[in-house]
């Protein structure tokens, strides 16, 4: 299913061949922002496993940070500092400066493209408070988040899609990218190196394979929250893009840092925006106490997400949870009044009513942390170029958005910085890819049978007479990740999860795909997705086991303090050795990468 009549392509041995200067994988915010930049300058295609407007950018709610200073004094330097402190100093500070500085243009770009932001009485873009965003280096919360009710992500996704339609961007919808094709080329110094030459995708509607030869490839495939059970992430967020890059032997950075958003609907994980607290909502324990006052006396409920999530789990662990099983806390919006809820927070008000039967106008809403966002991912530099080690750029390969690690989020992302990230670095990826493909580079020749690996992968899965159910393995993975690698971790809990994953990887080899058909075979795709989930969960756990300190989103009960002397560095995980072994240590090599520090020396993190 494609949105345009694509140019006729050649078919070789049943595989369709296409050629584009730039191929973008993923049609969420980062992918479409890149496409808007790339489309006018080079022949561009966007491959997406979903229709673009189904992408999970649309689920983002609260806002997009930019120091516009429309409602009160603000500066991009303050935003930079908040981002660095919010990330517990594991942020690369040059990247954070770019993020905060270019935020202003990124918001204005979107408005000029048509995004219907909420407005101030004098007609400018309105701004609201959000966790960790402060005036003058932590003095008080600041109104920095530009928003459209609690549908900011929806509006960004729609606006970017609308502009892609306007520009005639070519989409390949429901094409599932399964491999990055690399070709061995002469490095010019007597050695050879791997260079991206294209992408292999599976067309869901027909079951046929497509090879997209490209001069540049941009990964914008989003996150992998489905390694966890309780998550705000969509079913489709299985980390395929990150997994593809991993299987190519390229490193993954800071995978142990996963963000748990404090306010997921209890038991369901459906997101309730931090914008609710930005508008004044309060977290309470069973006795009605505003417990964040004890933990973060200055900014209380607007402390960064890692801190609030930990405090919530601690309240419950110490017996102060609400509900019959004392297993959640309460988000109290009742004092905000019906009008604020209906006009500024309409969607989350409806979610609480629909899914829990709780009306936030009159009752506090049961909430608990929900797996939300991967701070780690495919390492890139500030040009969105993918790195093959701490410094070496892979020419023609780019990544942006949640699948990438620049790293602007360090060990904990601030709310509203992800909608910003996709716009700033999506744009950079698109622009730099255009510059690259127009700099005189030619297509890299494809290797023989470029779709061979994918064809074999699918044949093995489809033809298997296994007995293991996909859903059973996935459920056990998700349950165990929630138990052992969630908000609090210990070496013991992580070792246990690692053991479970090893067992699941064995069982995965005996998997049963019941649907043997070619058309819309979502059963087969779920099997493929599970393979990526197992790969990534293993990297998350190995990286978490290796970091014997607590920082940002990574809280080790057995090492409760931050240890700058040993761990003020990024984790770099490499696939090496026996890729097919079930035992992680047989094929994961862990290394470190220095953090870029420009203006802000690490300090104790207090709010």
């Amino acid at each position, binding site marked *: 299913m494609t949105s345009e009549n694509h140019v006729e392509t050649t078919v070789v041995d049943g595989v369709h061949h296409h050629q584009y200067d730039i191929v973008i994988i993923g049609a969420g915010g980062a992918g479409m922002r890149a496409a808007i930049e790339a489309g006018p300058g080079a022949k561009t295609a966007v491959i997406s496993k*979903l229709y673009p*407007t189904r992408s999970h950018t649309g689920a983002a709610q609260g806002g997009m940070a930019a120091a516009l200073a429309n409602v009160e004094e603000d500066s991009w330097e303050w935003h930079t500092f908040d981002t660095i402190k919010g990330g517990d100093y594991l942020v690369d500070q040059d990247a954070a400066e770019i993020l905060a500085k270019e935020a202003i243009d990124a918001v204005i770009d979107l408005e000029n493209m*048509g995004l219907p932001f909420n407005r101030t009485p004098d007609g400018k873009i309105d701004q609201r408070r959000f966790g960790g965003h402060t005036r003058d280096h932590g003095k008080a919360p600041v109104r920095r988040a530009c928003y459209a009710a609690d549908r900011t992500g929806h509006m960004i996704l729609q606006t970017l899609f609308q*502009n892609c339609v306007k520009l005639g961007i070519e989409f390949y919808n429901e094409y599932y990218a399964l491999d990055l094709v690399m070709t061995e080329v002469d490095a010019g110094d007597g050695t050879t190196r791997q260079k991206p030459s294209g992408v292999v995708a599976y067309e869901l509607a027909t079951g046929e394979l497509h090879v997209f030869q490209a001069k540049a490839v941009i990964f914008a495939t989003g996150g992998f929250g489905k390694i966890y059970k309780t998550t705000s992430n969509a079913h489709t967020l299985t980390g395929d893009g990150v997994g593809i890059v991993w299987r190519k032997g390229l490193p993954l950075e800071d995978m142990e840092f996963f963000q748990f958003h404090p306010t997921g609907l209890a038991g369901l994980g459906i997101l309730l925006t931090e914008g609710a607290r930005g508008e004044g909502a309060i977290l309470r324990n069973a006795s009605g106490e505003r417990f964040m006052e004890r933990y973060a006396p200055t900014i209380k409920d607007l402390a960064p997400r890692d801190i609030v999530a930990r405090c919530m789990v601690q309240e419950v662990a110490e017996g102060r949870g609400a509900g019959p099983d004392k297993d959640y806390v309460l988000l109290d919006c009742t004092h905000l009044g019906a009008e604020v809820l209906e006009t500024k927070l309409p969607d989350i008000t409806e979610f609480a009513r*629909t899914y829990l*039967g709780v009306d936030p106008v009159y*009752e506090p809403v049961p909430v608990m942390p929900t797996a939300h966002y991967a701070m780690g991912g495919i390492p890139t530099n500030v040009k969105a170029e993918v790195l093959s080690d701490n410094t070496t750029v892979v020419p023609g390969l780019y990544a942006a958005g949640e699948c990438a690690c620049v790293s602007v989020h360090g060990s904990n992302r601030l709310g509203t910085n992800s909608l910003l990230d996709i716009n700033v670095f999506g744009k950079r990826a698109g622009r730099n890819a255009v510059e690259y493909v127009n700099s005189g580079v030619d297509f890299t020749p494809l290797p023989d049978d470029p779709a061979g690996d994918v064809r074999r992968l699918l044949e093995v899965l489809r033809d298997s007479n296994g007995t293991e159910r996909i859903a059973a393995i996935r459920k056990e993975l998700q349950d165990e990740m929630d138990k052992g690698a969630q908000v609090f971790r210990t070496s013991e809990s992580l070792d246990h999860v690692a053991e479970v994953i090893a067992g699941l990887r064995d069982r995965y080899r005996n998997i*049963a795909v019941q649907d043997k058909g070619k058309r819309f075979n979502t059963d087969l795709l779920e099997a493929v997705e599970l393979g990526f989930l197992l790969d990534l969960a293993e990297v998350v756990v190995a990286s978490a086991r290796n970091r014997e300190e607590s920082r940002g989103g990574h809280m080790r009960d057995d090492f409760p303090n931050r240890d700058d002397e040993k761990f003020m560095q990024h984790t770099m995980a490499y696939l090496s050795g026996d890729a097919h072994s079930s035992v992680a240590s047989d094929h994961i090599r862990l290394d470190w990468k220095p953090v870029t520090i420009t203006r802000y020396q690490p300090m104790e993190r207090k709010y």
Partner: protein
Amino acid sequence: MTTATLETTSTDAATKSFTVTFLIRRFDPEVDAEPRWQDFDVEMYATDRVLDALHKIKWEQDGSLTFRRSCAHGICGSDAMRINGRNRLACKTLIKDLDITKPIYVEAIKGLPLEKDLVVDMEPFFASYREVQPFLQASSAPVAGKERVQSVAERARFDDTTKCILCAACTSSCPVFWTDGQYFGPAAIVNAHRFIFDSRDEEAKVRLDILNDKEGVWRCRTTFNCTDACPRGIEVTKAIAEVKQAILRGTP
């Protein structure tokens, strides 16, 4: 704080499960000449969604059952389907809101080519969307580095139609669309409305001309199916009426 009520309801809901029968209209294009109905019994809780039932069938009984879904909370628009004869999102339809003494009928939305089970070809739907020029068109340049000014009232004028998630529940509930696939359909008109009434846009007239076509707004028979079907609560029929009025006036 009224936690007491909440505790009682959630405890009840959590403890009582029951068997629900689903009748699902299946179609495998590689095997079936015609669609067929197949029944499945599923163990459900009152607070489960129809999407949970579909997942339980796919994951525990029949892996070949095919449907689209992604976010699972009514935001992405993937899982519009006909549930007991009414267009809804499977992820926003709770078991407790259905009569489970009878089987629950689930089938693909109507009026778009059936591909497999609950999956239809969405391309004609998106083609109509693209035809109404669903993007801001303003030739006057904003002050460099600044937003266009828009008053709170101007922004509110088109708020309702910005909520559309392009799920096609409205268009595929429209009897006119069922009989005439050339009709733009409610969703395309909603997305035209969103720009026609945006004070920043300068090409309302072009869109009004497009929708004044014989396959445009005049095909609407005001049955309100679209408004009933919209999972986002958009007053679709009203939006169509406003576009009709704007065409008659010649201006938004």
